[in-house]
């Protein structure tokens, strides 16, 4: 479990929240605190007060895979192959194992044709696929995706949905503005103005959003 208690960071306030293993999707208006929440889960920022623990360890002592909502902010290296290999090199894996893990990750994600390119030559969607590969290559416990799907077409998104689900990440926490995607989650959190307004399964949360643009179209008129 990921357990959050009395958490405060600027205008974000969560008194108590439990995230179970599986896919948790965070939805809500722009500026409601979704990205801040994801950054706290990733350990990128520390709360002003309160606690967050991932299976009893703080996020900074947990293996995290992270994809930023700004595609260019994910990319540190010039070449795609170096970018994907970087998390393994940072933890001093041997050269041979880095190379084979990087290639096998690229194969799984069907992006081997990008390995010889520079990151500058990539399209927006390709940048996100490379960032996702770099987030998955070290088999993280928690995979965090900040609106990564806003750059992907439907076919690629569907394929990546399978890859993410079979990645072995115990917790997948993502935010999206695609409600079709949000309905395919174990757990949905609706954020508004720095608070978790609704929390539960899609069937529990979406009825509260009826009449808004967040209500899935196919769920009725």
């Amino acid at each position: 479990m990921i357990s959050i208690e009395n958490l405060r960071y600027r205008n974000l306030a969560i008194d108590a929240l439990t995230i179970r293993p599986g896919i948790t999707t965070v939805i809500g208006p722009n500026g409601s605190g979704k990205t801040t929440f994801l950054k706290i889960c990733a350990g990128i920022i520390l709360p002003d007060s309160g606690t967050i623990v991932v299976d009893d360890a703080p996020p900074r002592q947990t293996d995290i895979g992270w994809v930023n909502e700004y595609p260019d902010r994910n990319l540190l290296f010039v070449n795609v192959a170096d970018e994907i290999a970087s998390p393994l090199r940072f933890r001093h894996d041997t050269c041979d194992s880095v190379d084979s893990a990087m290639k096998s990750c690229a194969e799984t994600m069907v992006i081997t044709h990008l390995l010889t390119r520079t990151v500058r030559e990539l399209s927006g969607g390709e940048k996100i696929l490379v960032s996702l590969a770099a987030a998955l290559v070290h088999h993280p416990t928690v995979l965090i995706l900040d609106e990564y799907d806003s750059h992907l077409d439907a076919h690629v998104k569907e394929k990546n949905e399978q890859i993410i689900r079979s990645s072995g990440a115990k917790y997948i926490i993502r935010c999206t503005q695609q409600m079709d995607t949000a309905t395919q989650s174990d757990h949905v959190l609706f954020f508004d103005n720095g608070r978790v307004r609704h929390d539960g399964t899609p069937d529990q949360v979406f009825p509260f959003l009826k009449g808004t643009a967040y209500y899935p179209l196919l769920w009725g008129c």
Partner: protein
Amino acid sequence: MGVLIIRITLNRVHAIRDDWSLSASGTLDEGVHLVSGDVGSGKSTLALMIAGLFPLSGGSIEKEGITSTMLSLQFPELHVTGLTVAEECTSWGVSPDDILGTTGLTGKRDVSPLSLSRGELNRLHLACILAKNHDLLLLDEPFSSLDCEEKAKLCTRIGQTSQGITIIFTHEQEILPRVTRIWEIVDGMLVDCGTPPDAFQNWHHVPSIIEKLTALGSIPDNLSLDDLKEAACRIRG
């Protein structure tokens, strides 16, 4: 006096890079055009070519009656020149007071545009661009990072554009405006799918919701939320 015609003609336009290529032919008349295509298929490259910012390997682009062109890049952060949100508005030649009120960013007047969430930055960027009329408006992934309410508002705004050519390059599948014509890039070629609703039959990238509604025997008239809701309600009676 004749009626002024606004039109773009793509004459065997071609771009090549290594093992990738894009070919485009066709005529775009006034109205809202949607261009879809897979990741890396060349949507952004086509937008740049039409804007005159990417060299053609072959062919030509003919523009009639177009005196002003605006290209909104896929990454709004690449447009930022102001150090504050207010300066950013001024750099587009629009009044910060007008823009900040409508975008809900009044409290962020003096912060750096790059400290906004990506959705907020895109909202600011689009408001600045849409504050003026353009004969040719090219929008590359304009819905990216916008929340559902903002996407719907943008669609309404695009729907109010009564003149000129608007071309939307996107893979958005849920919240779209009513469009005049649908195009897609398939196997390196720009394909004219036609006008909705007939275009839905020829469209490889047809949104899954339209596929589902069609399978249930209810074909929406167009792509807008109202069209989809109307079709969904037809099923439920």
